[in-house]
């Protein structure tokens, strides 16, 4: 049973436009959410996180939105750049789970020049 779901395996966006990556979760105990970026043949790199006490966190071109009632979070990248092309993983954790994150299966983002 997948507790963290990224239903879009891939996303294609034009350079300069907005990329929106979505993530849904089923465990209402999750209270900390993270996004990671992964290039081929490399390990994931931490990108941005959000605590459940917030509904938005922004870091440069990256913004994460959290909708707790819908158990949904999204990562917005504006403007998208070709270097953003990578696989993006959503992860969620809970104090009851010792804060060990559960990862989604990832969304492959391709940004076209």
């Amino acid at each position, binding site marked *: 049973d997948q507790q963290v779901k990224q239903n879009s395996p891939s996303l294609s966006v034009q350079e300069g436009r907005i990329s929106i990556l979505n993530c849904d979760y089923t465990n209402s105990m999750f209270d900390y959410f993270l996004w990671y970026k992964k290039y081929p*043949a490399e*390990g*994931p790199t931490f990108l941005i996180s959000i605590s459940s006490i917030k509904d938005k966190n922004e870091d440069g071109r990256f913004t994460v939105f959290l909708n707790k009632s819908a158990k949904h979070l999204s990562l917005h990248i504006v403007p998208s750049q070709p270097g953003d092309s990578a696989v993006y993983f959503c992860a969620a954790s809970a104090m009851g789970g010792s804060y*060990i*994150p*559960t990862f989604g*299966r990832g969304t492959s983002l391709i940004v076209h020049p």
Partner: protein
Amino acid sequence: SQTIHQWPATLVQPVGSPLSLECTVEGTSNPNLYWYRQAAGRGLQLLFYSVGIGQISSEVPQNLSASRPQDRQFILSSKKLLLSDSGFYLCAWSSGLNQPQHFGDGTRLSIL
């Protein structure tokens, strides 16, 4: 600054052979350490984590084991590899259980 080293980058092993993957972290002390596996088309599956020397928690029953002989060293082992052990193995560390994890570059393991 903190760095994490994981080796080898790629490994091809026959079925039934043993395995030892090593991971070391530099620039921090008493890190939490993790082993993940990413199978083709799948997400990251947590295999083991450790909050201290000699302390290992296993998340899934499997053919693998982990050990932490030193504070910043984490080893993934198997006595006899199975075909299903193929995948991309990632080591990670964090400064605490509710902190972002920092990953190594992974080991691509192919079992023949």
